[in-house]
């Protein structure tokens, strides 16, 4: 890592540097470690920068330092300096800096202060005491830019998630700041919402005036608009700084080792190179289109011998997709063949406050299967799975879980069969230590203490929580909380696990770590039903998909069946994951069109998706 600093691409020197970060080290109060630790870079007008790093690298903290929230609003110790247009952030208030640096955060709901879209965008300029005509001029320009001018009188609450996030971007634009910092702006959005946000961002990025600093998990979208990438490692140290091609494609193996996520196309290319399909001196692709082109350019005679083994999960010809996927399910499931399905929904409808939110859904989930229920935000996914554990009673239709009617079965009895994990793990914690949290369900059943001790200890070890047994659940790290919540759902012996948007608001690394836990549970026979708006995550881990839209079940089947029908996905606000799309577009090698996920690419033993999860776990403080 001697050449850690590739000089940033030269931008014509029309003006001085816009943002200078010099030797920045930040330590949150109560933490021992500095992260970021010694980060230095200079940003000029028009640069669009992607800030990358594994969980715990301090990239979000760094973002908060760019407009002075660190150290002014966040209790933290800061060394080094951040200069915005030659003003040291220490010497100016956040409010004063807001004219120079706009900020868009992950949670759109927490950024809305007023009651209409127009008022919201005017809020910033009003605080700057600008004259009214100027405020309205800026608000109109900002709202037209994100395509929301026609909806200026609406309450932001009635906009979609993508719409609310665009309001936040417009609010930042209206401050007329030259620099805009966005921290995971699409993390809680479905694909349609993320498209909206990126359409708006691409336009702003193209004007050459705004400097954009972006933290993003959706690298396939981000890499299309950025011209510079800065990477921080797990300890908060800077590792790389350069163009996306230099950093992401040029140093892919190194970044992978550091636990940094690569764009899906680059990661696929990296694995294909290790498998001998791509030449070592060939540049790795950054986008899906480049991956497709690179695959098409592979000579047929070379590609054939190193094709992924057809035994890998889900790789089968379309004609036998269904049958073979079922065979895979049966083969990987350790549960004995059970005549009774795990979940049976028969014409289930749910009505809440006189509105029907689930319409007539029928679905059978076999034992040992791994289902992902996908759909845009508000499609009725959560309401549907809530009927499986008796939280919501169906207004009509029949629900059976392991043969029980959840709405009429005692909660304690039901929890021996099905466990439910809520979106926010904190909501379900009731005890004061991780140990008691797991023991809670057993004590309620009057199991004797020695058995409890044994079972809880086993569960703690299974989820890597043995060291945290006596820590208050609220003080665990995000990933630990999540694993504890899965443990509590399973402790009473449930063999079916239902999870409601378990990855909402989490970064990609944490999400993948959780899904890996679920996959290993599934391998030992647990039936898993997970609700998500992230189709890539679903495709990476599940073997069955159910697509919901407007409260109806649009389609259900194996991953291959569903992915084969792009039109249905598009119509329901979903997008094919970039990897699936790239492989489906391959023309020279029809056999390759069936690749769905990275671990299907051969020759990557020991480099599977799982090692991200393992390294993520180690990073938990």
């Amino acid at each position: 890592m001697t050449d850690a600093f590739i000089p940033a691409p030269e931008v014509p020197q029309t003006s001085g540097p816009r943002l200078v970060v010099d030797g920045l080290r930040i330590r949150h109060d109560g933490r021992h470690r500095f992260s970021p630790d010694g980060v230095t870079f200079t940003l000029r007008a028009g640069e669009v920068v992607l800030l990358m790093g594994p969980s715990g690298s301090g990239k979000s903290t760094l973002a908060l330092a760019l407009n002075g929230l660190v150290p002014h609003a966040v209790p933290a110790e800061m060394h080094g300096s951040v200069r915005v247009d030659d003003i040291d952030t220490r010497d100016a208030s956040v409010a004063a800096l807001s004219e120079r640096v706009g900020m868009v955060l992950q949670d759109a709901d927490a950024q809305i202060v007023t009651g209409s879209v127009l008022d919201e965008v005017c809020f910033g300029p009003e605080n700057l005491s600008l004259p009214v005509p100027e405020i309205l001029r800026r608000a109109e320009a900002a709202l037209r830019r994100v395509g929301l001018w026609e909806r200026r009188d609406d309450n932001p609450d009635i906009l979609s998630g993508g719409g609310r996030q665009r309001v936040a971007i417009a609010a930042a634009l209206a401050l007329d700041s030259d620099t805009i910092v966005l921290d995971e702006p699409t993390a809680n959005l479905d694909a349609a919402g993320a498209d909206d946000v990126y359409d708006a961002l691409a336009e702003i990025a193209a004007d050459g005036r705004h400097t954009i600093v972006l933290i993003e998990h959706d690298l396939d979208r981000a890499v299309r608009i950025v011209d510079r990438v800065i990477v921080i490692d797990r300890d908060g140290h800077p590792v790389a700084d350069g163009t996306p091609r230099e950093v992401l494609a040029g140093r892919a193996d190194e970044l992978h080792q550091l636990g940094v996520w690569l764009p899906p196309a680059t990661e696929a290319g990296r694995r294909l190179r290790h498998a001998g399909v791509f030449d070592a001196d060939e540049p790795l692709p950054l986008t899906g289109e480049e991956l497709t082109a690179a695959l098409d350019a592979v000579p047929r005679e070379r590609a054939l011998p190193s094709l992924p083994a057809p035994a890998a999960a889900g790789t089968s010809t379309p004609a036998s997709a269904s049958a073979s996927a079922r065979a895979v399910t049966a083969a990987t499931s350790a549960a004995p063949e059970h005549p009774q399905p795990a979940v049976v929904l028969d014409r289930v409808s749910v009505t809440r406050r006189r509105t029907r939110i689930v319409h007539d859904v029928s679905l059978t989930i076999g034992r040992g299967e791994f289902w992902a229920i996908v759909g845009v935000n508000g499609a009725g996914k959560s309401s549907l799975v809530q009927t499986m554990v008796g939280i919501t009673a169906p207004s009509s239709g029949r629900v059976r879980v392991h043969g029980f009617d959840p709405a009429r079965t005692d909660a304690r009895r039901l929890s021996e069969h099905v466990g439910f994990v809520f979106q926010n793990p904190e909501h379900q914690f009731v005890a004061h230590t991780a140990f008691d949290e797991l023991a809670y369900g057993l004590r309620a059943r009057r199991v004797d203490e020695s058995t409890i001790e044994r079972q809880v200890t086993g569960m703690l070890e299974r989820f890597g929580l043995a060291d945290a047994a006596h820590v208050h659940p609220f003080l665990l790290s995000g990933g630990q909380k999540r694993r504890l919540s899965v443990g509590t759902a399973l402790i009473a012996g449930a063999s079916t696990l239902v999870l409601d948007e378990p990855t909402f608001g989490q970064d990609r690394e944490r999400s993948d770590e959780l899904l890996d836990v679920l996959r290993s549970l599934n391998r030992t026979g647990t039936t898993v039903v997970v609700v998500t708006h992230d189709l890539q995550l679903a495709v990476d881990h599940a073997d069955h998909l159910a697509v919901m839209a407007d409260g109806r079940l649009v389609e259900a089947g194996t991953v291959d069946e569903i992915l084969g029908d792009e039109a249905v996905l598009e119509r329901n606000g979903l997008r094919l994951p970039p990897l699936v799309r790239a492989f489906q577009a391959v023309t020279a090698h029809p056999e390759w069109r069936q690749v769905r996920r990275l671990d299907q690419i051969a020759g990557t033993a020991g480099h599977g998706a799982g090692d991200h999860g393992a390294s993520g776990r180690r990073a938990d403080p």
Partner: protein
Amino acid sequence: MTDPYRSFASARPRHYLYALNPLSKLVAVLPAMAALLFTRDIMTPLLFLALALVVLVTGARIGRRTALLLGVALPALIVVFALGFGAWTDPAAALRSTLLPGGLFGASADTVILQLGDYRYTVAALGVGLATSLRLCSILTLSLIAGLTTAGPDLVRSLVQNLRVPYRFGYTALAAYRFVPRFGRDLEQLRAARRVRGSVVRRGPVGWVGRSVGMVVPLLAGGIRHAERMSFAMDSRAFGASRHRTERYSVPWRARDTVFVVILLLATAAVFVLSSR
């Protein structure tokens, strides 16, 4: 719960209450509300109730919900309160009161309506209950004059513009309204989570307290995090940058506001003159 951000842009000019400064609506009824606290009779609150209803019916758009509120819920509340306070009052003290010198509906004050052992529910007690009930409900109805016809942001704006309340307080309070639906959703999730965990359901008030205390910590933890993010977002948008902020909507105090206040103050005085006779 009503939306504090609701807009009254669609209100017709005939409904004059929407066009008034929110402060004028408060100033006009505050003296009456304060004076009502010190009344003990039945006539004064009854007259104020009538006055408030007249103002509302002439000045506000009466939709289905408002009609139900004023026409059904309010009378029902008056009756329930009257009976309840009547039962609560000290029967002996009630008999000594001179609220109903001529009795009620021809029945004299000491007529017993209901007797349970030693306890006697007399017409006099009902009179005391009715007076208390009318007092409360007339204050409530007077507050509806401003409450039903004022948008939250307008009240904040008029407080800032006309009363020079620091905008930092006003707008922070307004932003806090956004917490209410969020708390509601969180609470719903918490309840569901506890049910699914097979929590031992203890009935009665002790169980209720236990359950509530258990939910306070996660609710607060979520609320504090949300508040922190919200304060970051507000800071990042120049909130508090200077001592004044531009108000795009001015909420001026117009002649009609003065007229409204004067009329209502005169009416208040008239009610006291009438009822004291």
